[in-house]
């Protein structure tokens, strides 16, 4: 069992509290947090840029790199290299000169799958990039295909958010003015290359020469984002005729695109979306979990602004999508937040009192999605919230989980947003189960993908009926599944063939063809467990 220790990091401007596992370097922990040390060598101690001063606590011993890179007088005053530094107790450190703030953060790579495929002959252009382009976030990883090693990962905000929170708003923006299309395309292309350059600058220490050796860039994502990335106007998304068919996202300016990225040898592939509102991100999810290798039924949901759902019945894949709504992104609730400092990420009921867990242990400033799911389930269990979504004792200020903190209030409108989001998702799951004639008892696994799923308390999600009732041990959370599947596409020798075969097995379901979906939707508005017996 790996221990966690508390770290207080001081800078001239702020102090932050972190929990760090013993086997994670201080540099990587700060990369994940976003308050980063300076770095240029990928954490092997050769650049000496990531100096940090220890103030209190026990740490691992000085390494050879630290003896070489840190002058004796600074070593005596507690200066260390953050990439070589691991905690052995709770500790405090001071960071004198943080790296400039950035849109990009690293992932915690613990529990991340590693792949080992037989090496294939990649001579010069052996670097490869996997990209998952989402409505709100971009995730990417950089690979050396010869050694089959992931050099680093990053995630950052999709800067298009500034032009519209959801997909349709962004498409509407560009429909109003042609110039906007170019800007939406350029903004997202600039963001992706900025993320790649961030990895090269910090984790390799060279940029231009490495970019020239990139042979593959594989991009998955939701349909609208990929259409905009390729330079298309997304008009197909407005036409119901094209909603059930794959949408080709082929850029007609690939040459200049590669030039602008300084990647002359790269084959940039945008994986074609499966249908109008079913992107290739869910295709990557399915590849990540090897879904077609299983003989028993599996349900998979990738929660987000647009929630995509897949059901494997042992022979074919039933796929659909529904608007997840802002409730699953935290935003859209009166006190909704993304998973930022102070966001309530979990709620527990201890001796009939609500105990809040917040990101970075800060004072609660609002709810992120996982905390909100907990709150609803516990309010139901306590009887404060009825089956209908009405409060037992409605108050003008809403229900405060912490009576002294107005940011912990839940209003009827928040419950309503959650009810509608969960009903559309659960009803879509039910529709697929009905079409494939599968009961929830027969599901061997339920996979929950997307950032939303990462911190989800599945028991609480079941209490309110967000996901089907089944043994929790059969429920798997996989936050970065789409990026993981995208990585497999650039590494596995038969990736293209396997991906094409998978596409052949997909049956896209347009829920509007099924009048009973409305009934399922209304029934799932009730805050009660979701069971499909028949």
């Amino acid at each position, binding site marked *: 069992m790996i221990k966690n220790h508390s770290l207080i990091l001081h800078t001239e401007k702020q102090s932050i509290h972190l929990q760090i596992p013993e086997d994670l370097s201080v540099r990587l922990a700060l990369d994940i947090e976003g308050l980063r040390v300076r770095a240029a060598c990928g954490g092997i101690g050769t650049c000496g840029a990531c100096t940090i001063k220890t103030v209190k606590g026990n740490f691992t011993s000085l390494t050879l790199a630290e003896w070489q890179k840190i002058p004796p007088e600074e070593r005596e005053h507690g200066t260390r290299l953050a990439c070589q530094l691991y905690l052995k107790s709770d500790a405090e450190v001071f960071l004198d000169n943080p790296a400039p703030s950035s849109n990009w953060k690293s992932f915690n790579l613990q529990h991340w799958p590693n792949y080992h495929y037989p090496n294939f002959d990649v001579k010069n252009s052996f670097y490869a990039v996997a990209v998952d382009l989402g409505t709100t976030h971009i995730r990417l990883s950089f690979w050396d295909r010869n050694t089959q090693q992931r050099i680093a990962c990053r995630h950052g905000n999709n800067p298009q958010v500034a032009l519209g929170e959801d997909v349709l708003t962004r498409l509407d923006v560009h429909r109003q003015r042609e110039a906007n299309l170019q800007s939406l395309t350029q903004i997202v292309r600039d963001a992706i290359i900025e993320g790649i350059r961030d990895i090269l600058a910090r984790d390799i220490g060279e940029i231009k020469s490495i970019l020239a050796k990139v042979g593959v860039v594989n991009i998955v994502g939701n349909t609208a984002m990929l259409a905009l990335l390729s330079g298309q106007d997304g008009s197909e998304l*407005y036409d119901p005729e094209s909603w059930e068919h794959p949408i080709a996202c082929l850029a007609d300016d690939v040459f200049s695109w590669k030039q602008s990225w300084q990647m002359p040898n790269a084959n940039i592939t945008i994986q074609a979306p499966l249908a109008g509102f079913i992107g290739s991100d869910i295709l990557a999810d399915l590849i990540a979990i090897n879904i077609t290798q299983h003989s028993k039924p599996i349900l998979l949901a990738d929660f987000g602004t647009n929630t995509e759902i897949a059901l494997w019945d042992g022979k074919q894949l039933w796929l659909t999508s529904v608007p997840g709504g802002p409730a699953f992104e935290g935003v859209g609730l009166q006190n909704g937040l993304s998973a930022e400092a102070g966001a309530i990420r979990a709620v527990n009921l201890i001796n009939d009192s609500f105990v809040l867990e917040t990101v970075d242990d800060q004072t609660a400033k609002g709810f992120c999605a996982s905390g909100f799911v907990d709150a609803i389930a516990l309010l139901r269990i306590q009887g404060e919230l009825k089956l209908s979504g009405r409060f037992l004792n409605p108050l003008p200020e809403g229900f405060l989980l912490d009576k002294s903190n107005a940011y912990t209030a839940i209003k*009827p409108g928040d419950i309503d947003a959650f009810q509608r989001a969960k009903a559309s998702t659960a009803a879509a799951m039910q529709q697929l189960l009905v079409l494939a004639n599968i009961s929830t008892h027969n599901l061997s696994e339920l996979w929950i993908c997307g950032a939303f799923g990462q911190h989800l308390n599945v028991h609480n999600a079941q209490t309110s009926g967000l996901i089907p009732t089944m043994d929790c041990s059969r429920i798997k959370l996989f936050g970065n599944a789409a990026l993981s599947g995208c990585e497999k596409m650039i590494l596995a020798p038969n990736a293209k063939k396997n991906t094409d075969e998978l596409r052949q097995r997909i049956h896209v379901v347009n829920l509007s063809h099924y009048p009973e979906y409305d009934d399922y939707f209304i029934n799932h508005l009730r805050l009660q467990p979701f069971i499909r017996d028949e």
Partner: protein
Amino acid sequence: MFETYIKDYNEAVFEIDKELALEVIEAALEEGVTPEQVVFNIIIPSIEEMMAEIVINADTNLAQHFMTAQIAAEITEKMLAKFETTPESIGRVIIGTSYGDLHSLGKRIVMGCLKSMMVDVVDLGVNIKAEDFIDAAVAQDAQVIAISSMMVHTATGEEGSLKVRSLLKERGLEDKIKLVVGGAPYRFDHELYNKVGADSWAADGVTAAKIIRELILEGKS
């Protein structure tokens, strides 16, 4: 006498307790209330009360609205079957969602309300072309075309209400057939109905049914 029934029925429906709502109605029937009175004096006023609450209280629950409308529609169907004489229809409306729009729920609630107000409803479904609205209205001798749009581009698109209006004009049907619209975009812009060539609009199911009823009656007078 209806006030108590309305109160009990509303409370049951607000708690989405269909069984209890039915018990209230059964009790009313046993005490001599006719099925017609149940529909016109209990169910419709209760929906109106709920709508009033939605307008007053911005925090009110839309999910609640959907669930209660479903129960109301079910009970109305049961009562209609018990009417002593087959209720006489006051007119006919063709309903559907606009071209490119697959959201059917709002339309469904309007249909439930229309039926309880004795209006014949012909549902064309979702993603309906302008020509199909017109052809159906002519073939079925309908007085009103009602179009639901849940997205701005389907409300304002050239293949939607705008085209229905131009076809009505082209075929000289404007006096005989009225055009009503509804859906989320119209709630944000109260003049939008005018811009898309509609005669009227409504913010919710009950209002839509009332407006359609008035348009039918106006046309007859």
